[in-house]
C-alpha cells in the first residue's frame, strides 16, 4: 500500500445506515452472545465494535451479513428490514477474521468471485479488479496462488475481494490482527483514508483499544454481549461509562470513592475537593497526574508517592508509584533531563479537571 494509488471513482451511491434494534442472540440458555443490543450507525460512518474475546463482536457482524439470525430484535440496513433477506441478497461484504480465501482460486480469481456471481460483464470485472488491486497495492500479486502469500498479503486480498463489490456496508472482523506493528499502523491509516474516499459505511471489529481510537468515528464497547458504552473515541477514553470500559481502554488509576459530599470526595489516597458527580470510582487518566521531583518547588494540593518502577517507553517514561500503599501510574515525557528513579520519593499534582467519576461495572 506504499505506492500512490489512483483514486477510486466516486460513485453516486448513498452509503447505508444501519439500525440495530434490541437484538439478542443466544446459542444456549447459558450462552448469550448478544443481549438486547441497540445501536444506530450513520451512513458513511467508520464504526468500531470493541471488546474482549468472546464478547459477541463476530456474532453481531454475522447478523449484519445475514449469516446468522437474531433470536429477537430487528436489523435495518439502508432503512430496509433485513428479516428473511439471505446473505447473497444483501449489499454487504465481509472481511472474515480467518480471511476465508478460496484455496482453489488464485488471487485474481478470488477477487473476481463476487463480481462473477453478480454476472457483471467481463470488461467491468477486469476494470474493477485492476482498480481495486492498485488501490490496495496488490497489483503485483494477482496471478499468485493463495498459499504463496504472507499473512499480510492474504489480509489485503481479503480486503480487495470485499471492496471490489463496492457494497453499501463493509464489515471487517479484526482484519489487522495478524500483522506486525509497522504494517498494521500503515494499514490503519490506509483503511481510514479508503473509507473516507469511498464514503462506505464500515463496521470494524477489534479488541485493540488503540486501534479503535485511531480509526473510528464512533466506538461501541461490548462486554459479555451487552453494550457497555457507545460514543466518540474521546468520549470513551476520557469519560468511560463504567469500570469495565475504563479498564478496557487501558486506564489503571481507578480509585474507589469511600465517601462523597457536597464539597468533595474521599479516596484511598486522600480527599479531593470539588463538585463531583455520583459514582463508585474516581478515574485519574495519566494526563491528570503531574509528576514533580521533591526538589522542585511544590505546587499546592500535592500528594506524595514512591516510585516502584520506571518503564521506558520511548517518547515517555511510565512511572509505577505507590501512594498511601495504593498503586498509581503516571507518565513523564522524556525531554533529555534525568527523571526520578526507582525508590525516589516524588510529588504528584492531581488535575481534577481531567479526572472523571464513573460507575461500577454493569451499573452504567
Amino acid at each position: 500500500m506504499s505506492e500512490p494509488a489512483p483514486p477510486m471513482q466516486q460513485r453516486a451511491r448513498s452509503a447505508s445506515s444501519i439500525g440495530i434494534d434490541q437484538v439478542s442472540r443466544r446459542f444456549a440458555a447459558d450462552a448469550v452472545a448478544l443481549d438486547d443490543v441497540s445501536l444506530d450507525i450513520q451512513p458513511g460512518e467508520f464504526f468500531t465494535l470493541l471488546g474482549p474475546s468472546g464478547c459477541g463482536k463476530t456474532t453481531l457482524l454475522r447478523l449484519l451479513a445475514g449469516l446468522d439470525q437474531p433470536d429477537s430484535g430487528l436489523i435495518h440496513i439502508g432503512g430496509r428490514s433485513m428479516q428473511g433477506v439471505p446473505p447473497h441478497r444483501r449489499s454487504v461484504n465481509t472481511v472474515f477474521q480467518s480471511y476465508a480465501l478460496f484455496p482453489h482460486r488464485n488471487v485474481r480469481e478470488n477477487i473476481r468471485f463476487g463480481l462473477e456471481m453478480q454476472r457483471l460483464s467481463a470488461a467491468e470485472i477486469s476494470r474493477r479488479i485492476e482498480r481495486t488491486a492498485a488501490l490496495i497495492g496488490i497489483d503485483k500479486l494477482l496471478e499468485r496462488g493463495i498459499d504463496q502469500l504472507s499473512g499480510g498479503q492474504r489480509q489485503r486480498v481479503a480486503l480487495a475481494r470485499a471492496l471490489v463489490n463496492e457494497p453499501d456496508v463493509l464489515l471487517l472482523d479484526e482484519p489487522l490482527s495478524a500483522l506486525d506493528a509497522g504494517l498494521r499502523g500503515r494499514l490503519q491509516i490506509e483503511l481510514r483514508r479508503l473509507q473516507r474516499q469511498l464514503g462506505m459505511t464500515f463496521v470494524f471489529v477489534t479488541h485493540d483499544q488503540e486501534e479503535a481510537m485511531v480509526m473510528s468515528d464512533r466506538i461501541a464497547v461490548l462486554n459479555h454481549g451487552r453494550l457497555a458504552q457507545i460514543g466518540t473515541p474521546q468520549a470513551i477514553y476520557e469519560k468511560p461509562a463504567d469500570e469495565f470500559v475504563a479498564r478496557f481502554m487501558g486506564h489503571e488509576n481507578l480509585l474507589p470513592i469511600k465517601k462523597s459530599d457536597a464539597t468533595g470526595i474521599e479516596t484511598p489516597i486522600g480527599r479531593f475537593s470539588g463538585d463531583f458527580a455520583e459514582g463508585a470510582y474516581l478515574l485519574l487518566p495519566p494526563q491528570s497526574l503531574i509528576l514533580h521531583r521533591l526538589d522542585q518547588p511544590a505546587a499546592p494540593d500535592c500528594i506524595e508517592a514512591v516510585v516502584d518502577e520506571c518503564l521506558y517507553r520511548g517518547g515517555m517514561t511510565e512511572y509505577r508509584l505507590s501512594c498511601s500503599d495504593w498503586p498509581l501510574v503516571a507518565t513523564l515525557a522524556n525531554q533529555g533531563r534525568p527523571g526520578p528513579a526507582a525508590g525516589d520519593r516524588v510529588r504528584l499534582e492531581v488535575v481534577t479537571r481531567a479526572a472523571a467519576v464513573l460507575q461500577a461495572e454493569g451499573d452504567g
Partner: protein
Amino acid sequence: MSRGRLTAFLRGFWYALMLFLYAPLLVVVVFSFNSINSSARFAGFSLDWYKRLFANDVIMQALWNTAVLATVSTLIAVVIGGMLGYGFYRYRLGRLSWLVWLIYLPVIMPDIVFGIAEMTFFVLINQWLGILAPGLGTMIIAHVTFQVPFVALLVNARLLALDPSLFEAAQDLYASPWQRLSAFLLPTLRPAIAASFLLALTLSIDDFVISFFTAGPESTTLPIYIWSAIRKGVTPEINAIATLMIATVFLIAMLSMLGGRRRRTSDT
C-alpha cells in the same frame, strides 16, 4: 546395535520388502511373454498369448463386463458418495451426526460376509418380486454399496479440512445456492472427487469376492474368469490377462499421482 548397522539393516529390510512386493508381479509379466506353455521355464519372447487372449470371445466378454461394471458403478458411487460426504459434513453438529459411523461398517466388514449377505438379499428379493436376477445389475448395486463409503469418507475428509467460513464467504459474495455448488463446492472438491473416482474404479476392477457372489451366468468378470480358468492350471494366457490388469491399475495410479502433482503446481 550401532547407528550404521541399524541403517544397513533397515536398507536391507527395504529391499527385501520391495522384492516380496514386486517380484511376483514381475514373474507374471515376464511369463506372459513366454513362447511356450510353461510358468516354470522361459523359452523365448512372443506375443502369442496376447493374440490368443484377444481372439478368445469369453475373455473379451469378461473384459467388457469388467469395464462396464467398473465405470457404471463408479459413476453412481461418486454421485451418491459425494452427496453423502457433504451431508455428513453439513449436519456434523446435528443430532444424527453419529450416523457417519455407520458408513465405516462396510469398509471394515470382511468381503466374504458382505458378498454372502448381498447374495442372500438379492435372492430373497428375486423370489418375492421377480426382479434383480443375478447379473450385471445386481453386481453394479453390490459394487456401488462398497464403493460409496470410500467416496463419502474422502469427500467428507476434504470438507472437514476446509475453513468453515469459506461457505459463508461464498454466500457473502452474492453466490446463490446453485452458484455455491458450481463455483465453490465442486471446484473445491475436485481433487477429492477425482481421487475417489480412481479409488472406486480400482476397487471395482479389483473385486473378486463380492462379484463372485452376486454375478449371474452372463456377467463373468475378469477376476471371476481367472479364478475359474486357474483351476485348470496357470497358463501364460492368465499371465497375459494379469499383466494387462497390472498395466491398467498402474495407469490409474499414475493418473492420480499426476493429478495430485498438477494440483500442487497450479496452486502455487
